[in-house]
């Protein structure tokens, strides 16, 4: 079980990475942590001609707070987010979901943005992104654009990312005050792919009435599924 031959490039800027992807349109694949892509290569389920590794681009591995949001760069490891203490206060749902993302040994290498761009229907982070209205910053040959989580996931392993675009950053807004949340999944073993899972929030207004309720299911469809908001009876 070894990958088919491919060429490899390690650009040192996002612009250069986009140029490489565009010059090898349809043949190239972005490599971040590789925790999803490398198994596919080893099993020869994917046979790209060129891997464009983002790891040598300086300054992409940040996790920081910006105006109350948790902002995560393309090369930030899942483990770095796990260790970013403010996340537990700003977006506790996001923080709590991470322990379900494979195993610590994968999270040391795997990136948050890589998992989102890979868009496995059984993955946790896409569901959390949808629940929390995350925003994706995408860079490509025509510059930068922002995509809302509800518009990002298209179908199995497919997002709105064009083959010469890169997910440069994801922004998880802080959970509103008076928001309760829960995250759970069913897997054969803790850390395995979930057979199904749920990510949910309920936000109350100052009077205690429900202002917003969200349920996002994953592992049960081609993308995370957000059933229509429960209506008031």
């Amino acid at each position, binding site marked *: *079980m070894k990958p088919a031959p491919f060429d490899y490039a390690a650009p040192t800027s996002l612009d250069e990475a986009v140029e490489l992807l565009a010059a090898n349109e349809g043949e190239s694949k972005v490599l971040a942590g590789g925790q999803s892509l490398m198994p596919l290569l080893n099993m020869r389920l994917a046979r790209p001609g060129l891997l464009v590794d983002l790891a040598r681009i300086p300054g992409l591995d940040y996790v920081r707070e910006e105006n109350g949001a948790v902002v995560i760069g393309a090369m930030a490891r899942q483990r770095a987010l796990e260790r970013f203490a403010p996340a537990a206060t700003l977006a506790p749902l996001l923080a709590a979901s991470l322990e379900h993302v494979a195993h610590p040994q994968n999270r040391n290498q795997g990136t948050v943005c890589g998992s989102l761009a890979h868009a496995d229907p059984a993955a946790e982070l896409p569901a959390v992104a949808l629940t929390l209205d995350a925003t994706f910053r995408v860079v490509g040959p025509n510059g930068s654009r922002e995509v809302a989580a509800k518009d990002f996931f298209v179908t199995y392993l497919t997002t709105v990312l064009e083959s010469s675009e890169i997910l440069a950053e994801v922004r998880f807004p802080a959970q509103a005050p008076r928001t309760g949340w829960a995250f759970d999944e069913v897997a054969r073993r803790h850390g395995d792919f979930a057979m199904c899972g749920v990510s949910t929030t309920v936000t109350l207004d100052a009077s205690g009435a429900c202002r917003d309720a969200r349920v996002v299911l994953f592992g049960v469809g081609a993308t995370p599924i957000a059933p229509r908001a429960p209506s008031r009876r």
Partner: protein
Amino acid sequence: MIAKRSISLTVNGVRYEATVEPRLTLVDLLRNELGLTGTHVGCEHGVCGACTVLISGKAVRSCILLAVQADGADITTVEGLSPSGQLHPIQQAFQEQHGLQCGFCTPGFLLSVKELLADHPDPTDEQIKETLGGNICRCTGYQSIFAAVKCAARKLADPAAGALATGVAQVG
């Protein structure tokens, strides 16, 4: 024809240079090019943990990491845990607590545990389980590995502690 790449990396304190195909995985570099066969190849898709090594002290799967990605990295394999001929306290603990049977998975476990105990010298049961969950063992049933981690934590906290502090009988 795809050009090979020249890389250099440090493994167990020794600097190596190699010229590799981009598709060569780190574990195949370690085993087949550098002769460090202590790191084992199991599932080859990042699930079983047999190939776990440390990069800058962090446990990662070397079967789903390319050698070119490890260019410039500082790697520890099982061969680097202790000077030759001696067992690291974690290895001693695995031996005393019967934390292995066939031994195929053991190098991966040892390195996962090394990271755990570096981060959490006195780990909770949950922290131990979270770490061990990343490595598969088909012999032991994990209980003795769990006991070995607790034993290793005690040994590392107090190097002078007796080798058999946890009541495993020594025969002979």
